[in-house]
C-alpha cells in the first residue's frame, strides 16, 4: 500500500499543470467554447507535444506506455481547468480499445497518429434505447462482398466530429446478448454515415449518428468477430475511472473557489465563512471530495484488474460516490456563492454544469448502485449454507 507518486508521475503532473495554468485560464476556455468546433486543435497539438496523448499507448507505437494512474493525474488537472478537448473519449477510451484488441495493422496505422495529435478517435457504442447498458446493441453488421455493411443508430457520441469512429454493431444474437457484437473503425466521412450534432450541458459537443448501409472492409474490424463487448466494457471502465478523476479535479476547484468566497465575502459586517451554518457546509463539501478522491484512486487501480467482478464493483462504487459528491459539491458551491453562483460570468456555474454532465455520463447513480448490488458478495454465514 503506497499512495506516493513516482518522480516520473510528478514530473508529468507538473508539466501539464504548468501548461493548463498558462494556456487554459477561464477566459481562454470561454473563447474556445465559442468557436464553431468548440475545441482547440492548437491545444490538442500542445497536449501531443507534452506527450500526454500517448499516456495510454505503448512505447512501440510512440506513446509513453503509462496507464490509469497517470491518466488520473492529468484528468484531475483537466477537471479543474474544464478542458473541452476530447481527452477521455480519444486518448483514454478509444485508445484503450485499439491498444487492447485491434490488429497489428490497425494499431500501427492509428495509434501513432493519435499520439501525435494528427487524428482524434471516439467510441460510438451507446444507442437511443441502451440508456447506460453497454450490452444493448441493436445496430447490425452484415457480411457483404468480403466486408461488412452497418445499419443502425448511435446516440450522443461524444465528440463525434472525430476523424475515426469506433462503431459497434451486432453480427448475431438478441439485442442484449453478451456475444455477437463486433467493432469497426469507420472514418467519419464514410458514405452513409450522418451526424446530428448538438452542444451538451457542459459546452461540449456530441452527436446522434445514423448508419445507413455503411460499408467497411473486413480489415477495419477491431478484435474478434462477435466478441467485442468485453473490450468495449473494459475500455468504458478506463473511461469511468478517468471521469471520476476529472470530477475530483473539478470538485477540488469548486471547494477552493467556495473557500475563497467564504473568506472574503462580507455580510452583517463579517466574512460569511465565520457563520457556522456555512462553515459546516464547507466541511461537508471537503468530506465528500475526499471520499471521492479515495474512490478515484481505487477506480484507477482496479480498472486494470484481471478479476471482472472485483473490477466492476470497484468502478461502480467509485461512480456512485463520485456522482453523489459531484451533485452535492456542485449544488452547494452555487448555493454558497449566492446570486453570483447563478451567473454565467463566474466559473463556478461551469464546473457545476460539467459535474452534472459527468453524473449522466457512463452510468448514473442508480445504474451503478444496481450493478454493485447485483455483483454483491454474500456473507460467509450465507455462503456456508
Amino acid at each position, binding site marked *: *500500500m*503506497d*499512495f*506516493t*507518486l513516482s518522480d516520473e508521475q510528478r514530473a508529468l503532473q507538473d508539466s501539464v499543470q504548468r501548461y493548463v495554468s498558462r494556456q487554459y485560464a477561464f477566459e481562454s476556455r470561454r473563447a474556445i467554447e465559442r468557436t464553431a468546433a468548440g475545441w482547440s486543435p492548437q491545444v490538442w497539438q500542445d497536449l501531443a507535444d507534452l506527450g500526454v496523448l500517448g499516456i495510454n499507448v505503448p512505447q512501440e507505437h510512440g506513446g509513453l506506455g503509462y496507464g490509469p*494512474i497517470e491518466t488520473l493525474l492529468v484528468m484531475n488537472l483537466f477537471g479543474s481547468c474544464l478542458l473541452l478537448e476530447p481527452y477521455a473519449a480519444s486518448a483514454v477510451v478509444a485508445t484503450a480499445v485499439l491498444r487492447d484488441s485491434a490488429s497489428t495493422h490497425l494499431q500501427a496505422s492509428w495509434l501513432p497518429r493519435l499520439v501525435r495529435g494528427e487524428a482524434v478517435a471516439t467510441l460510438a457504442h451507446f444507442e437511443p434505447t441502451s440508456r447506460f447498458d453497454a450490452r444493448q446493441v441493436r445496430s447490425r453488421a452484415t457480411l457483404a462482398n468480403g466486408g461488412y455493411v452497418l445499419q443502425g443508430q448511435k446516440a450522443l457520441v461524444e465528440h463525434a466530429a472525430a476523424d475515426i469512429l469506433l462503431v459497434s454493431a451486432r453480427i448475431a444474437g438478441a439485442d442484449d446478448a453478451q456475444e455477437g457484437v463486433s467493432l469497426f473503425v469507420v472514418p467519419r466521412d464514410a458514405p452513409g454515415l450522418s451526424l446530428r450534432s448538438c452542444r451538451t450541458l457542459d459546452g461540449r459537443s456530441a452527436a446522434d449518428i445514423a448508419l445507413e448501409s455503411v460499408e467497411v472492409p473486413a480489415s477495419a474490424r477491431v478484435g474478434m468477430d462477435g466478441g467485442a463487448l468485453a473490450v468495449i466494457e473494459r475500455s468504458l471502465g478506463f473511461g469511468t475511472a478517468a471521469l471520476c478523476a476529472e470530477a475530483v479535479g473539478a470538485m477540488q476547484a469548486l*471547494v477552493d473557489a467556495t*473557500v475563497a468566497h*467564504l*473568506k472574503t465575502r462580507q455580510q452583517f459586517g463579517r*466574512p460569511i*465563512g*465565520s457563520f*457556522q451554518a456555512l*462553515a*459546516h457546509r*464547507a*466541511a*461537508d463539501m*471537503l*468530506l465528500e471530495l*475526499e*471520499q*471521492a478522491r*479515495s*474512490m478515484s*484512486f*481505487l477506480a*484507477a*487501480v*482496479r480498472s486494470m484488474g484481471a478479476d471482472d467482478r472485483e473490477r466492476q464493483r*470497484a468502478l461502480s*462504487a467509485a461512480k*456512485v*460516490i463520485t456522482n453523489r459528491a459531484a451533485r452535492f459539491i456542485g449544488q452547494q458551491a452555487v448555493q454558497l456563492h449566492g446570486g453570483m453562483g447563478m451567473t454565467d460570468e463566474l466559473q463556478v456555474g461551469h464546473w457545476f454544469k460539467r459535474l452534472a454532465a459527468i453524473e449522466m455520463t457512463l452510468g448514473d447513480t442508480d445504474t451503478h*448502485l*444496481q450493478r*454493485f*448490488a447485483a455483483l*454483491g*458478495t*454474500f*456473507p*460467509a*454465514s*450465507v455462503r456456508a449454507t
Partner: protein
Amino acid sequence: MDLDFSAAEDRFREDVRGFVQARLPPAVRARASRGLSPTRDDYLSWHRTLQERGWVAPGWPAKFGGCDWSPVQLHIFEEEMARGDAPLPLPFGTKMVGPVIMEFGTPAQQGLFLPRILSGEHWWCQGYSEPGAGSDLASLKTRAVREGDHYVVDGQKTWTTLAQYADWIFCLVRTDPQAKAQRGISFLLIDMRTPGVSVRPIITLDGAHEVNEVWFENVRVPVGNLIGTENQGWTYAKFLLAHERSSFGGVGRAKRELERLKGVAYSERRHGRPLLEDALFAAKVAQVEIDLMALEITNLRVLDAARAQRALGPEVSILKVQGSVIQQRISELLLEAVGPYGLPFVPERERHGATAEGIGPPHAAGLAARYCNERKLSIFSGSNEIQRNIIARMMLGF
C-alpha cells in the same frame, strides 16, 4: 500507487486471524454474536491472553513492552480483532494514558503504571467530561488545590466509561482558577479507591450500564501523581487526542457489522424472498457498503501518511464523521431488517445470563438496543459537529 497490502502484511494478518480463532474463548465470541457487549471478565481474560502473546499494546515502543508495530500493522490487528469478534483491549490505558505517561511521565511513573496496564492489574478510565464541560472541555471545573504533598480534588466527572470496574482514573483538573480556560489545567492520576471517590451509574437508552458519574469530595492525591508540569495539562490532553484518533474510522468493526447485516437480511423474508434480494433494501445495503469502501481507502491514506510521518490534515476528522455515520447506518439497517421484531426490548444487562431469548428470531435480539447505543458514536470523542468545526477551521481559518 498501490492499494494492496504487501505479502508480509498479508502473512501478518493470517497470524493475527489464526491467533484470534485459536485463543478467543467461545463464550466471548458467542456473546458478541448475540450482540452483547463483553463482560468485565471477558475483557480481563482476553487481556491476559493477549498479554501472553505480547499484544496488549502493540503500538507501544518495545522498550515499554510494546511491539513497535507500524500504523498499518496496528490497523490490520484491529481489523482482525473485529472480524473475529474479539474485544479490543480498552483504550483508556493502552491508547490514552499509557502514551501520555511514556511521553511526559517520570521514570517512577513509567515503572509503576506501564507494566500494570500491560498486565491488566490496573483498569483505567478517563476523567475528562463534566456536566458543564462537554464539547467545551476547557471550561471544566473540577478543582485540585495543593496542600503540602497532596492535591485535594473536588468536583464531578461524567460519561466515564466502565468506571465501575476501574482501578485508576486520569483526570483533567483545574489547578489555577485565575488563569484563562486551557492554561490552568493539570493532568492527574487518581486511585479510584481513594476515600472521597464515588461512582454512580448512568443508564443509557439501551438499558445498559456503560457510563458513570464519578464524584470527588476532598480526595487527597499525592503530588507524585501529577503528570508533567502543573497547569500544562491541556498540552498532554491534546497529545492524547492525537493518539486516540489513529483508529477513528472503525473500519474493521463496520465491516464485521456489514457482514452481520447481510446475514440477517438474507435470512429475513419480504414477499417470500430474501430481504437482501429485495431491490429497495439491496440498494440501501449497497450504498452503505460503498460508503464503507470509500472510508477504508481514506483510512489507508491516513495510515500511509502516518507511516511516512506526514502531518495529518482534516482526514482524521473525516474518518470520525464518516466512520460514526456508517456504523450508525448499519445499526439502523440491522433494525430495519428484522421488521416488527425490532420491537421486543430486553435491556442488555438482563440478557446476560438469560437462558432463553425472548420473542422473535434470535438474530433480532439486541438490535434495538444496539441501534440506541450507537447513537453515541457521533457524540463522543469530539461530536461530529465539533469535527466539522475542526475541518472548517483548517479550510477557512475562522
